[in-house]
């Protein structure tokens, strides 16, 4: 089966003189939840921006379902949904209108919309806030709006950037449950996060980024084996990479 997302030899960033990412290569298959971890400044957000098509690769290419964004901009965008780290909302739109606009943009019919949005609103306990404007929302509620918009679409690929900060425990659990469900239905999810314990529990694979390069990637078992300590946690391994104890990688 074709990978949903393939990133090949991606070198990129904001200026050609000083690229942030160096030769990043990874694939994501349907039904995979991949954790993207790394220190602040390791290049997680830059990677995400490249995948979203907000930055042009200097070298290499990114394909979603086999196509690059240059080949088919709308088809590419149609296949992915994005939850940003900092929620950005239309300040002039109500929660309901956010969902409606998403439905319009991704061409979701009315019955599907009703069913999905009703469920999402209930799941995140926002039913009573349908007609509220974002100025009355807390950070966590704004985050929930972003998540609801993304999961309303049900695309093949989800890009989720540090989703847990600010969410209440029910919100976090609902998000994790939703991700599990989408995975079962064949979606691929790329999630960047610092909450390693949760990532360890839920992600199928990990990509540890360090200084713009992939230090190590694979299932936790594979990474542990490489690390040479089957009792090490993701946290231990991640710290080792971050501190530059990288002899085991080679």
């Amino acid at each position, binding site marked *: 089966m074709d990978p949903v997302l393939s990133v090949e030899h991606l070198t990129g960033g904001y200026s050609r003189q000083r690229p942030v990412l160096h030769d990043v290569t990874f694939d994501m298959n349907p039904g995979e939840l991949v954790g993207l971890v790394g220190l602040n400044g390791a290049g997680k957000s830059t990677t995400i921006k490249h995948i*979203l098509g*907000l930055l042009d690769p200097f070298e290499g290419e990114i394909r979603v379902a086999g196509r690059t964004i240059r080949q088919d*901009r*709308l*088809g*590419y*965008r*149609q296949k*992915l*949904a*994005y*939850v*940003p780290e900092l*929620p*950005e*909302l*239309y*300040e*002039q*739109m109500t929660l309901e*209108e*956010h969902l*409606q*606009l*998403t*439905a*319009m*943009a*991704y*061409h*979701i*019919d*009315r019955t599907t*919309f009703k069913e999905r949005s009703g469920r999402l609103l209930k799941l995140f306990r926002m039913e009573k806030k349908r007609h509220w*404007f974002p*100025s009355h929302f807390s950070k966590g509620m704004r985050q929930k709006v*972003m998540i609801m*918009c993304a999961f309303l679409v049900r695309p093949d690929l989800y890009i989720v950037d540090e989703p847990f900060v600010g969410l209440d425990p029910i919100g976090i659990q609902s998000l994790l449950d939703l991700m599990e469900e989408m995975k079962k239905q064949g979606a691929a999810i790329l999630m960047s996060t610092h909450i390693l314990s949760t990532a360890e529990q839920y992600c199928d694979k990990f990509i540890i980024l360090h200084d713009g390069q992939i230090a190590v990637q694979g299932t936790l078992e594979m990474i542990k084996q490489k690390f040479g300590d089957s009792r090490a946690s993701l946290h231990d391994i991640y710290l080792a990479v971050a501190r530059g104890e990288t002899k085991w990688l080679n």
Partner: protein
Amino acid sequence: MAELNRLWEKRRTDNFQMQLRYWNLIGKNSGLMFVLYAMIIIGGFYYKRWLDGLPEHFPGLLLISVVLSALSVRAPVRTFIQKADQVFLLPVEPELGGYFRSSRIYSFLVQSFVILVAWIVCMPLFFQMAGRNPVAYFLVLAAAFIVKGWNIDCRWQEQSIDDLIPLKILRGAISFLFLYSVTARLFIAVPAACLLIMLLSGAFLFHRQAARGLLKWDRVLDMENKQAMKFLRFANLFTDVPQLKHRIRARKLISSWFPVRSFDREHVYDQIFVKTFLRADDYFGIFARLTIIGMLVSYFIGNGFYTVFIVAATVYLTGLQLLALWKHPLPQALAGMYPVSFGLKRRSFVRLLFALLVIQTVALSAAGAAGMKSPAGFFAFLAAGLVAGGLFSLGYTARRIAKENR
């Protein structure tokens, strides 16, 4: 603490300079100054006529007391507190006494000036009602200042008190009674009693309760913002005030006329632009104001050729103002990610712009035709507006934004 006092000084000067810059812009608006002079002169003329025609038993003194007490009971304290202070100044809250004292004195001085102006305006009325007695009228001014000072002090104590409604009622009632007793020269015991109540309630009601409560920073911040906004909103009538941007109004009724009809990709940006136009910034306000001004001018000008020109010019000016809507920032994570082509966005915008200009044209033409009582004129004006609006939106704007290909 000296540093905190310096902080207050700095904020006051910053605010003063900011206001000065805006006043400068407002002053350059020569049309405004002219209107102001004209209003003072015309107002003075009619005021005199009104006074001459007053009946014997007109309750003029009561009116003066109402005006002065309305001005003195509303006593917000200008603190220049900013949102970040809730974090950075919170630890030194016990040492902010001097800072807030300066705030109260400043608020007293600024608001006393307003009272002074009102006092001067009321002077002829007072002399007409109570005879030419300057000493008595100066006593009224002194009383108004006392009331203002007391109200500002109490208002500040209220910032640490929870149950405000009885206190506000007390404040209003006593202030009015005191001012009326001085203005109408009631028996001396009445104002004296009021003064005593003011002193006692100030000490034992306001100060004592405040000492037990905590300062409600949110309320202080809210009070500050409201006052700051009031000036900026005024300045915004004459010039563009960036701080006022991105205010959202729900506009429930008018928004409900534009529900989501079909979940079609073609209409995403129709929705976004319509709702943004109605609710965000001041797009709708600008459109409404220009339309009303245009209608008034068209109605009163009464000359067909000029009206044609006015209609076309108003439509063009409105179109220019509405172009900003195209640049209204939309969230990258939502609108930026939609699988919707740029062409659809352009089409939605041009369509909305054209529709708005057509609506305006109809309104202007109707006003112009009504002013000239000529139904035929309506169609001439309509044609002029449609040509101007069509050229501007379908021609100029469509071509201009097509160049920004992305």
